[in-house]
């Protein structure tokens, strides 16, 4: 797993992908922070919470090549014939993408320190928001990786992932057009945005954490099955 992790992580920075994604995160984090700062309410948790749309657009870029590229270049033959488990391959790739994603939110630590020097802050609220965005990102990475494992084309993977991300994040907005009430309720409750926003409430909710963790686990599992299935094709 560590070999795969190292390679994938490094490959984000031997291609422009990692730098571009980090630049986007740093730009928007900086923009939101400076806006709030100039209004005189430098609330770092809400800066982090405001990033969900940016995350939705950028995750597909991180995940599009994760699996599809191996298949296109036939490198999967080296991975699958090496004495490693499929789960090791999938976890390695997942954590590599998650690590790049997490680095994208590193500046918020600096913001929090700056603010903490000036006023009294609720560190727990900040950590909770950070944890929330990592879970949201993790869930989207797992979904994107699974989609990437279904195709050889990174473009198709990115496109599909983006559509799925928009749907899962904002399906609550579509709830009003659904006539069946329980489906509408489900869509409202299960939309990533509804779950994610509760992380900004400074109240720790186990259910929300479990929700994201199960999404991650489910899609990692599906990615493993997808690799496994290819052996049977």
């Amino acid at each position, binding site marked *: 797993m*560590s*070999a*795969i992790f*190292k*390679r994938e992580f490094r*490959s984000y920075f*031997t*291609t422009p992908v990692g730098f571009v994604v980090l630049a986007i995160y740093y730009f928007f984090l900086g923009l939101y922070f400076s806006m709030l700062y100039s209004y005189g309410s430098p609330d770092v948790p809400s800066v982090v919470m405001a990033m969900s749309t940016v995350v939705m657009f950028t995750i597909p870029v991180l995940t599009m090549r994760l699996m599809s590229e191996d298949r296109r*270049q*036939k*490198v*999967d*033959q*080296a*991975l*699958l*014939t*090496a*004495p*490693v*488990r499929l789960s090791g391959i999938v976890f390695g790739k997942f954590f590599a993408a998650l690590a790049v994603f997490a680095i994208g939110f590193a500046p918020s630590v600096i913001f929090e320190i700056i603010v903490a020097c000036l006023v009294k802050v609720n560190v727990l609220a900040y950590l909770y928001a950070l944890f929330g965005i990592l879970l949201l990102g993790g869930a989207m990475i797992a979904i994107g990786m699974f989609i990437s494992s279904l195709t050889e084309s990174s473009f198709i993977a990115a496109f599909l992932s983006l559509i799925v991300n928009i749907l899962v994040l904002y399906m609550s907005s579509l709830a009003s057009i659904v006539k069946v009430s329980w489906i509408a309720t489900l869509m409202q409750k299960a939309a990533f945005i509804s779950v994610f926003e509760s992380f900004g409430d400074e109240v720790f909710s186990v259910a929300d954490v479990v929700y994201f963790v199960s999404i991650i686990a489910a899609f990692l599992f599906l990615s493993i099955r997808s690799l496994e299935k290819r*052996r*049977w*094709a």
Partner: protein
Amino acid sequence: MIEVSGLSKRYGTYLAVNNVSFSIEKGEVVGFLGPNGAGKSTIMNILTGYLSLTQGKVEIDGFDIVDYPEEAKRRIGYLPEIPPLYIDMKVREYLNFIYDLKKVKFPKKPHIDEIIRLVKLDQVQNRLIKNLSKGYRQRVGFAQALIGNPDVLILDEPTVGLDPNQIIEIRNLIAKLGKNHTIILSSHILSEIQAVCKRVIILNRGEIIADDTPENLADKLSKDRSLMIRVAGAEDDMLSALRTVEGVQRVASLGVKETGTCDFHITPREGADIREGVFRCVSAKGRALLSMTDNALSLEQVFLRLTGAADNEEARRMLGFIETPAEPATEQKEDEAE
């Protein structure tokens, strides 16, 4: 070292590999030969654990590839048809990655240095794989297979697309590795198999149709063991002289093909070796024997005959694996004559 029994692989309704069994001893170098789509790559992919099998059993050094994939895979180095390279990595970086991936126990730097030297990658070890020529990429693929020093090497068309010099280099490398590795090599270049393999498995339409040494295969297939000779000087009495040679059944003159020489086609009696007799006869006449070629089939001809057979049954019959109805047929002829 490698035990394959009753191996089948089905893609939907298409049977790509049909009930294939063979066993390869430690230190053997075996060639897989067959036309495109014969199932060579599929079998290799199954042996290495890349593809699953539909039926049968594959054991590498006693470890079943399905039940103990990690143990089995640890013993195999695989060079697929298209080398599995991350083209955005540098050569050494990539080999380090494969080293980590395979969880090799040897000291890292000396091990990789040794492999780089062995496959002659010294010049390019710090270049991006993307920028390498096909020959070098193939060598990186080779190096990748060698990492961890696995006992078994499985090489799928290792010389395809290389220039003649590179082909010779890779062939020499295979011969060198063959001394202390078990190697399976596939190719559709017959001379290559002939040059490096002591045993050939010929596949056609997913089945094994022959499994023997290249020489034996040629032997079994060529019923015709006749000789063609060229003698200096005019024909004169050579024809009658040759007829007196012990073991000769028939001699035919082929006329003059090169000025000042004459050619003959000599058919020996069943099982007789007439080469020496022919030589002595020609020299006793005070003539020079300029050339003598026997009509034994090259592996190429063997291959064409076998894979060109109407079906695999017929191919096996050609090799005598199945009793031919040839004798009853001749009896019938005799009956008719009577």
